[in-house]
């Protein structure tokens, strides 16, 4: 009985999922080149794009990048720095996150990796969504600008695949009082108006975070954005960096493999 109900598609491999995912957006927006999806809604909405470009000429997140650069160079109590945890290459490491961490058996994001690094070197963990961790991840995105996302779901790690599948399930599951899934807005209704906003494509969603949002006049992380979306459909959000959100990020970022990191970004 259960076997009959399981659609084979739901268990297609990550790479087949990704190809189907990108093919959908390619057929929905044949005029938009693949790499443009890294620009989120501004790949689709021209009037908004001009305002965005104007703000990107001198974006308010520049202060945050500076702060992150300073924090990156600070020494931990044992004299080490972040560079000892992350490869201190010119192209950064943002494009490789989230990644499956065999030690913990869980998905590690930039934020959890930052805290892991601090813990390993005798520094206190930072509060997720707090100024310092956001500045650090903004700086790390900045360093990785132009690097294509390269997320791996190792085939020899069943837990990695399970985490990916859990993220995929989250993405396609309707939730909340409005009974909407991520895919309902950002795949099925992509480009449609929701009041005065247009719905962005999920392809490219993770490339540009954290973002400076005009609405709040501050930085917003991907998980804060997840939280906002879950709230918007009338469901109780999960915690920042919860297993649910990390797995969702794993799936969503895998779907954007090959797109360039272009964070941090400015958003309305």
């Amino acid at each position, binding site marked *: 009985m259960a076997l009959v109900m399981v659609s084979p598609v739901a268990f297609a491999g990550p790479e087949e999922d990704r190809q189907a995912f990108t093919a959908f957006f390619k057929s929905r927006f044949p005029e938009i080149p693949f790499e443009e999806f890294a620009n989120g809604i501004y790949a689709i909405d021209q009037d908004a794009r001009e305002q965005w470009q104007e*703000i990107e*000429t*001198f*974006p*308010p997140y*520049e*202060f945050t990048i*500076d*702060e992150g650069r300073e924090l990156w160079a600070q020494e931990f109590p044992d004299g080490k720095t972040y560079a000892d945890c992350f490869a201190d290459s010119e192209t950064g490491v943002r494009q490789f996150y989230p990644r499956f961490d065999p030690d913990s058996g869980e998905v590690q994001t930039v934020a959890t990796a930052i805290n892991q690094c601090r813990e390993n070197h005798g520094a206190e963990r930072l509060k997720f969504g707090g100024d310092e961790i956001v500045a650090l991840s903004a700086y790390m995105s900045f360093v990785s600008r132009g690097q294509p996302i390269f997320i791996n779901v190792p085939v020899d790690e069943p837990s990695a695949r399970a985490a990916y599948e859990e993220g995929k399930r989250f993405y396609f599951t309707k939730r909340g009082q409005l009974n909407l899934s991520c895919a309902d807005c950002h795949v099925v209704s992509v480009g449609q108006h929701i009041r005065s906003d247009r719905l962005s494509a999920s392809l490219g969603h993770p490339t540009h975070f954290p973002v400076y949002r*005009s609405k709040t*006049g501050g930085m917003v992380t991907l998980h804060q954005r997840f939280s906002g979306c879950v709230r918007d459909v009338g469901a109780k959000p999960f915690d920042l960096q919860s297993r649910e959100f990390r797995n969702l990020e794993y799936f969503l970022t895998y779907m954007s493999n090959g797109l360039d990191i272009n964070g941090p970004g400015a958003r309305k």
Partner: protein
Amino acid sequence: MANQIKISAKLKGSVADVKSLMLHPMETGARKDPDTGELVPAHHITQLIFTNNGKQVMVANFSTAVSKNPFFGFSFEGAKAGDTLKVSWVDNKGETAELETQLA
């Protein structure tokens, strides 16, 4: 991190194209603190002044209706490489910030 200014100045011949960004809350005085419900007092940059080699090239007067972390761009003639462009602001609380940069 307070009182920061960022400036970018590009020379095109003798014209300097100046863009600047200031870290400032630009509180209108009409916003309520979500935690306390109290009005947050107005706190905004009132005046932004640019000088090039000591000569004033721009005075920008701002109200509270200029966006948080204000951006301001303008251009002036008669600039050359090596000139000292200086920007300073003052806000309604009397706080100030300034920054100097060499045109290149």
